[in-house]
């Protein structure tokens, strides 16, 4: 096997508990194979699923037979019968090869009816099904992974691990150390079958030791939703413990992924063997040098560079390369016809208007040539290095793994730095002949695992030339109108606190370590689609990936009240009717988003934002339970019939009644209050104060009758009152004189001169777009700048119509 080839067996749990995330498992696994098809074509992959009930009758007769094998001479057969267990021993000449040879310790296994090799050979391992034997990756592998079977029984991950190891060992034997890998995806919900002898832990120890001896690595991904409860009384805990043993005793890594999004990111889909960028001394001083190795910790996985394709070759030409060559020619500026040969060129560097020619040889003679070294400049307080000065991708310094003393020295320094809140400043020249030095900061990375040594992270810092010291005004110097008041500040505090991606007791959402790159995900999915249908359109982002680019509706709805409060206090309310069209125009829609027209039935999944956006597209004809206030506002602003206003008010009244009547210890009061406030506002706008006032009186009476006085008190405490005369006064046209520049449009300035504007909050005309005619009006009152939206009339060949619609947004 070639040097850089990997053999991987995917062990996928497909038992019923996994069904809800199998789609993501399919995606991440096929992505992994896809990347192998591109970047490491000769890697080999096998696929094992477990948790399937295989109907294959092959060894059904052996049901109940368990096999144990002990070192040396004899085999022990155990017959498990209903009601009792019997043993019988046998001599070595057993006809069937009873147990995987790689396990050196006695172990008990049950035999069942699957068709994996171990079962056919020795029996046992029921519900473990080899979907694909280990072989070089091909398109069938991708396809097999995209249609995983849905299992019906619980799966035993230990069985699966043993089957996977058996496959690897049979195929490669002790060769390919470190290039053999198992990848286990399971929720570890189902109990592991108890071995006949010893405990599960002993069994795991045996397997782990064997893994280590055979040089097999394992990645375990445990995708467990946050709502998961340990149903089987400690089974999960026990399983987690067993997995923990693996990560301690062998080269295994266990990661837990709560959300489907983090599952996509949890599996490393591209294998990059780490290469050191420096091996040598970390010089604390000339007398004290610590041997270290430096690796890249982060390095961007770039979008693949695609080759340019030429379709000029005739279609009959079978040997056409379709490549495009790039040709550079250097021509004299003065005589464009003369081509200067490459050897006659010389590099010139600009110095002001001058260009200074310097040949490479000259340049090499005078340029800065530092010696390869990594030297300490000193330690400093962590507060002296601000986070935003980190310049590049990050490196990691580990002590030379073979040098115990160096490990100790790094450990001592790292721990001391952490304790003292210090960082180290280094000057690094990674390679001999490197033309510059790097100054950076070393921060401690103290390990909490016994088998990982302490290390440092290294970040490059800017030089004096790299920092631009622009001056910005102090926030305290801004006028009061731009400063938040106390209430607003509190709302902001709440937002920052409650709109929380890292709640205690839950997985931190969007952790960089578990967040896949949506662009790459999409590219590889599209690539796969295109390989089948060359004209396939770009697939939309699915909901799992959308959680990376858009706020998670679930989190948003959890803190909806906080967001609404924030929104209310900062008075940036846009008119719902206009919002849609404005939005549509303002930002070009992200491709593949299905924000509109998505008739998603699952109201819990769809966040409030999307909900409103969907509905505000127009026709809401009744007030729903989820967002009554928004529905009400939308209905009030419908203009296709004057009846909507009355209907909206009527519906809203009923809704409020329902809420008050059905409340259980005041739990709906807050919502009812919001509705009431909204109704009040609507009635003022629509010149229907009587309707509101009558309703409020009625409600009051109703509460007294039904002994719901606490609601009345609640209202009073929130200051909800009848609509007063002054509030209900008709508002007339507010005209004003306005000279208005609206920026550069094409080349000409659009200038709207004295203009008459109508107050849109007028009844009957609410949200009517009124044309401002530049000809109307003169000598009108000035106008306090409000938030407004402005529309052109029709667009005629790029010019604005003489009229503009100005819409004031009511406060």
């Amino acid at each position: 096997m070639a040097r850089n080839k990997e053999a991987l067996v995917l062990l996928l749990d497909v038992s019923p508990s996994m069904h809800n995330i199998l789609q993501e498992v399919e995606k991440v696994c096929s992505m992994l194979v896809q990347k192998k098809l591109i970047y490491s074509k000769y890697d080999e992959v096998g696929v094992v699923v477990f948790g399937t009930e295989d109907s294959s009758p092959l060894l059904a007769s052996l049901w109940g037979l368990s096999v144990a094998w002990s070192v040396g001479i004899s085999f022990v057969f155990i017959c498990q019968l209903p009601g009792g267990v019997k043993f019988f021993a046998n001599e070595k000449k057993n006809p069937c090869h009873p147990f995987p040879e790689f396990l050196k310790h006695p172990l008990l296994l049950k035999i069942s009816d699957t068709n994996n090799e171990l079962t056919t050979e020795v029996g046992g391992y029921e519900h473990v099904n080899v979907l694909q034997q280990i072989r070089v990756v091909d398109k069938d592998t991708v396809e097999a992974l995209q249609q995983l079977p849905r299992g019906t029984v619980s799966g035993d991950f230990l069985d699966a691990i043993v089957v996977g190891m058996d496959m690897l060992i049979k195929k490669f034997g002790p060769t390919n150390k470190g290039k053999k890998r198992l990848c286990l995806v399971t929720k570890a919900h189902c109990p592991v079958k108890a071995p006949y002898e010893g405990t599960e832990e002993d069994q795991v120890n045996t397997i782990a030791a064997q893994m280590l001896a055979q040089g097999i690595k394992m990645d375990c991904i445990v995708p467990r939703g946050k709502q998961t409860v340990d149903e089987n009384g400690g089974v999960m805990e026990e399983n987690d413990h067993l997995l923990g043993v693996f990560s301690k005793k062998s080269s295994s890594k266990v990661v837990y992924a709560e959300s489907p999004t983090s599952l996509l990111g949890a599996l490393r889909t591209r294998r990059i063997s780490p290469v050191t960028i420096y091996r040598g001394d970390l010089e604390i001083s000339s007398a004290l040098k610590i041997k270290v190795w430096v690796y890249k910790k982060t390095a961007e996985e770039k979008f693949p560079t695609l080759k340019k394709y030429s379709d000029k070759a005739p279609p009959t030409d079978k040997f056409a390369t379709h490549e495009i060559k790039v040709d550079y020619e250097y021509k004299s500026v003065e005589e464009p016809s003369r081509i200067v040969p490459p050897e006659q060129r010389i590099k010139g560097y600009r110095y002001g208007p001058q260009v200074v020619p310097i040949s490479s040889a000259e340049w090499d003679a005078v340029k800065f040539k530092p010696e390869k070294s990594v030297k300490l400049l000193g330690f400093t307080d962590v507060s002296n290095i601000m986070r935003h000065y980190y310049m590049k991708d990050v490196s990691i310094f580990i002590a030379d793994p073979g040098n115990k003393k160096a490990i100790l020295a790094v450990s001592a320094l790292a721990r001391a730095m952490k304790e003292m809140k210090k960082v180290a400043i280094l000057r690094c020249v990674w390679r001999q002949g490197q033309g510059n030095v790097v100054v950076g900061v070393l921060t401690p990375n103290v390990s909490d695992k016994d088998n990982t040594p302490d290390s440092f992270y290294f970040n490059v810092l800017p030089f004096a030339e790299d920092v631009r010291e622009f001056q910005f005004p102090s926030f305290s110097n801004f006028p009061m109108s731009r400063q938040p008041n106390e209430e607003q500040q509190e709302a902001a505090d709440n937002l920052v606190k409650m709109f929380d991606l890292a709640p205690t007791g839950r997985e931190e959402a969007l952790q960089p370590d578990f967040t896949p790159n949506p662009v790459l995900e999409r590219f590889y999915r599209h690539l796969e689609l295109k390989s089948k249908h060359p004209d396939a359109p770009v697939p939309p982002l699915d909901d799992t990936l959308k959680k990376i680019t858009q706020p998670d509706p679930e989190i948003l709805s959890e803190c909806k009240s906080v967001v609404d409060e924030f929104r209310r206090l900062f008075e940036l309310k846009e008119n719902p009717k206009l919002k849609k069209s404005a939005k549509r125009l303002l930002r070009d829609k992200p491709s593949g988003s299905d924000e509109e027209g998505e008739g998603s039935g699952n109201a819990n999944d769809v966040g409030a934002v999307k909900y409103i956006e969907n509905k505000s597209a127009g026709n809401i004809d009744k007030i729903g339970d989820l967002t009554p206030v928004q529905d009400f506002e939308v209905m009030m602003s419908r203009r296709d019939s004057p009846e909507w206003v009355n209907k909206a008010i009527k519906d809203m009244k009923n809704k409020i009644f329902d809420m008050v009547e059905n409340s259980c210890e005041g739990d709906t009061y807050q919502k009812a209050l919001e509705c009431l406030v909204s109704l009040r506002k609507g009635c003022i706008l629509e010149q229907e104060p009587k309707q509101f006032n009558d309703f409020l009186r009625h409600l009051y009476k109703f509460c007294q009758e039904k002994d719901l006085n606490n609601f009345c008190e609640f209202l009073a405490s929130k200051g909800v009152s009848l609509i007063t005369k002054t509030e209900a006064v008709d508002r007339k046209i507010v005209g004003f004189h306005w000279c208005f520049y609206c920026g550069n449009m094409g080349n000409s300035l659009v200038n709207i001169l004295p203009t008459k504007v109508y107050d849109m909050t007028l009844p009957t005309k609410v949200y009517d777009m009124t044309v401002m005619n530049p000809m109307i009006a003169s000598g009108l009152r000035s106008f306090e700048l409000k938030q407004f939206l402005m529309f052109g009339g029709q667009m005629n060949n790029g010019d604005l119509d003489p009229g503009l619609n100005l819409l004031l947004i009511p406060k």
Partner: protein
Amino acid sequence: MELDPDDIFRDEDDDPENEFYQEREASKEMVVYLVDGSPKMFSATALQENQEETHFHVAVSCIAQSLKTQIINRSYDEVAICFFNTREKKNLQDLNCVYVFNVAERDDLDRPTARLIKDFDCIEESFTKEIGSQCGILSGSRDNSLYNALWVAQALLRKGSAKTADKRILLFTNEDDPFGSIKGVVKIDMTRTTLQRAKDAQDLGISIELLPLSRPDEEFNISLFYSDLLGLEGDDASQFLPLAGERLEDMKDQLRKCMLKKRKVRRVTFSIANGISLELNTYALVRPTLPGTITWLDSVTNVPLQSERSFLCADTGALIQEPAKRVQSYKNEDIKFSVEELSEIKRVSTGHLRLLGFKPLSCLKDYHNLRPSTFLFPSDEVVLLLLAFLLLEVVGSTCIFIALHRSMLRLNRYAVAFYGSATHPQLVALVAQDEMVTASGQVEPPGMHMIYLPYSDDIRHIHTDENNETPRANDDQIRKATALMRRVDLKDFSVCQFSNPALQRHYAVLQALALDEDEMPEVKDETAPDEEGMARTGVVNALEEFKLSVYGENYDEDKEFETNGKVSEASRKRKAIAENAVKECTNYDWSDLADNGKLKDLTTVELKYYLTAHGLPVAGRKEALINRILAHLGK
């Protein structure tokens, strides 16, 4: 073939660096440095460590410094240097007491040249002789040097339209009351005309900035005259310069900062939730400065060359004009993508910032970094966004921004957002930064820093094969390390205290070549460790103790390796090869072979014996190997 890296990437639509690092602005900047040359500028100011510095020196050295940076970074910007209150006069308007400093082959307002920088470096010596200092506003004469200076500066800046150029006058003076020496109607009249002149200039789109020089005992009183000239009112004026009692060094620092005009990179909309959005400007406060771009020249004539790139079909040789399709080979097939499809794939979100939530600062790890950060500040202009035929104004951005900024600082949290740029959509962390002010002015501006976060594919895991328990430092060792750390402490370290030695070297070489200087200048490498400091007994003792505690006595690096048996397979092999080579090498009479030209009859394997035995590189073709051997033999 060596190619100009700039050229290769120029049109590469999916090259990320391009958009990110290149921020060439459409507009250029025109600056007139207006320096007061009155005798008052020459009076000594601070006596510090016996070093006498004049305000004139401060002003001139600031300008010299800024010219040197400018010629590298923004060489298209134009400058003029103009002294007023001078004995001699030199200006197009032939006005008294104004001297426009210039060198040959250069307009008065033009791009800086090497010659200008060189001559200006010695201005302090030549000033008295050639220009001379003389107070221009005296009672009795009707001359108004300040008025003249503004007039000349304004006339210099007449060039270029206000749309494409950013015009500024930077005025250096230590005289807070220029008309203090005269009285009565004349004073009123002169004040009025000067103010009018300044106002005219400002109306033409020229901004006037004052860089007042004051001394500890005598504060520059801006309200006497200059607040009117600059149009400052109320609070602005009082805040303009809280300079009292400062060291000259700080002043220099501040002046240097003022010389950089801030430029925004772009404007983004930060949408929070439910349709609340703010308008923000982004600024690049930290970006690696690269040596200037390479221009290819004809080595015979030194005339610049133009590069032409053409795409040719490898099969037919036909020239390809239209944007080509891209292919990815996959499953033994070429899968084609159109350019539109590729940009569609990348458009996972719009070019705006979307808030996704908040996290405590502890979640932002040291390795969550990929590129230099970008600074965000609320857009304070109340501008109407004009998009298609829709006008939308977003007010209150600043207010929301300040509120969030305060909350984030107070609660120690940062925001996670998605930045949907067309080429590089990415998760970002927005970290609030409080304003930090020291005596020399603002050190850290208030705002948010946008830190680009890696995706899971960008983070690497380093597996060490070590599975045994790894050793951990014990308390004593940690204590020794702590003691060492206390000894080697950089108290006032600031991230930008070192200048880049490679870059400085580059500039120095260029300058020397441009000015035909014979000697290559020596540039001090500021990043070299402080050997002297490390040799102090306290430090040496701490080092020794730490070393003793960790490594023990008589530690031998090689022995450690041998006893551990950890010498890797590869290095053992290498050693064996080297030994073998030395042995084999003696079988040949190299000198004789070389003399008779027989080296070429040997195989490369044989040639490599010699090279390995003598520690020479073994790479390259056979001829290269032979040449290397010959060179080593000295033949």
